[in-house]
């Protein structure tokens, strides 16, 4: 085959296959991504972690052995989490986390509340800049709980954290007892409403069965890669 016949043939082949690709993109169904079950499971040991807070101090799950630990996945801009523009939708700006802290102190004074921010990828920023931003929003919204920076998002992956807010309640023996929604006020509100964190912490303190163990979380997605 000489060059004169090779080039048109090549063009036809490329154009045809290219058109086929466009057609495929328009009609073919993309294959669902294979997924594995998240590591953290209710009834099983919660994954260990060690992260720095906004002051640069290291905080580990192991530090709180014997105490109930609440983890809340946090994002400073998400309207359902720390985002001020969320108004009553934001569990922090609306004062719902503050109300929970007050109620939790009565239910179990030793219970620990930690926020984890895994939004470095989402916000295209560095751990240091995110810590600065979180420290500012912590002050502005009067958040008293430490905010831990999960810069490489490994803790979010280990827990299977899907949304901000997405909460996990771990008992004193390190067993995950509840995961999911913060409360039933997905459309916003100022009071406690039915708060699943409080329900879980209270049940654990009383030695009772935690019910519910899972309520579907709501809010912005957690981006881990």
């Amino acid at each position, binding site marked *: 085959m000489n060059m004169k016949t090779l080039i048109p043939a090549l063009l036809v082949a490329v154009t045809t296959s290219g058109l086929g690709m466009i057609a495929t993109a328009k009609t073919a169904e993309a294959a*669902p991504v294979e997924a594995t079950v998240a590591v953290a499971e209710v009834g099983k040991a919660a994954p260990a972690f060690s992260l720095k807070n906004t002051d640069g101090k290291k905080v580990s799950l192991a530090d709180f052995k014997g105490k109930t630990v609440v983890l809340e996945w946090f994002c400073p801009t998400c309207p359902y989490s720390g985002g001020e*523009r969320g108004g009553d939708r934001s569990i922090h700006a609306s004062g719902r986390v503050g109300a929970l802290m007050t109620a939790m102190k009565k239910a179990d004074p030793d219970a620990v509340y930690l926020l984890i921010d895994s939004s470095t990828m989402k916000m295209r920023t560095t751990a240091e800049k995110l810590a600065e931003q979180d420290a500012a929003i912590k002050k502005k919204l009067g958040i008293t709980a430490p905010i831990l920076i999960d810069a490489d998002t490994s803790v979010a992956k280990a827990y299977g954290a899907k949304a901000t807010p997405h909460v996990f309640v771990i008992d004193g023996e390190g067993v995950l007892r509840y995961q999911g929604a913060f409360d039933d006020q997905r459309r916003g509100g100022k009071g406690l409403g039915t708060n699943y964190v409080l329900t879980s912490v209270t049940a654990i303190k009383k030695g009772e069965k935690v019910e519910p163990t899972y309520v579907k979380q709501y*809010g*912005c997605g*957690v981006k881990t890669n």
Partner: protein
Amino acid sequence: MQRLFNGILMMIAALCLPGASCIGADVHIEQDSTDQASEDLATLTGDDLVKVDLHADIATFLPGQDLTLAVAYDVRPGWHIYWRNSGDSGMPPELSVKAPAGILVGEVLYPRPEIFQKKQGDSTETTFGYRGKVCLLIPLRITESFALSQIDLSIELEWLVCKSICLLGSKQLKLSIPAALPGRPSVADPFGLRLVNVWRKRLPVPAARARVFASIRDSSLQVTGPAGLSKRVLFIPDHTPGVTSVKRIPVPGVIEDRRFSLDVPLEIRPEDALGEPLRVTGLVLLGSYDRPRAISIDLPLSRIDIPRDDPDSTGVGSSAEH
């Protein structure tokens, strides 16, 4: 010659760009967006990203008549809003209709959604929603005794629109529909009617109408029915407290001899049902997003479907041809 060859290579590269969205496909694998930098996220609001409009399928009304509202969302490319079950994260759009006494407002009807998937470490974030243009429909009934000369409707809308970040948007829309002239029939609104008809075709049909049979056996949802010319079948769940799929979402089924079968193993936890009756609800997706066929499944769980601690217990199963 070299230039021609380079041109061919560039053409191949352009056609094979990674991250090209699967327009029309049910499962949209989300890629890291590269155009984010061009949008000023600090000043953007959800109102900038979604344009909304309100239409009705009639221009004038008669008492006793049914009508349908079409709430049109136009979402900026790269962003999406959510189905009534948003999935792993997100929030469905909120619609609150204010209508005068004598107007009965039905439930919001959601067209078949797309599936958005993002790889998240070892797991996958799966959400359901809409890109581009979508209409949610709201059926209304005008009672026979409705005596006003005009129906004044207002609707409060709120939506969460997401890409890598999420923003809230809201708007209030108003629509007034005058009564038909005395002795004259109701007049259709041509544009509104067209919108309603187009999006009604994308609504899921009840299982009975699609001759689909669903049952629960041994804590598994089993669905069978005609597949038509579809080569693929998927199941996506609705929001059902206390009932979750053990398998990854969407759950693929099998098509043989133009019939599909789906087997969806369920984890049934009455303690997570929040006091609601346990149900299995969701959509069977056939065809594609462009040529959609969706069948709604809604199956109550009976006591015998709920697994007990006794290992010898066997679920006989409830079944229903809807």
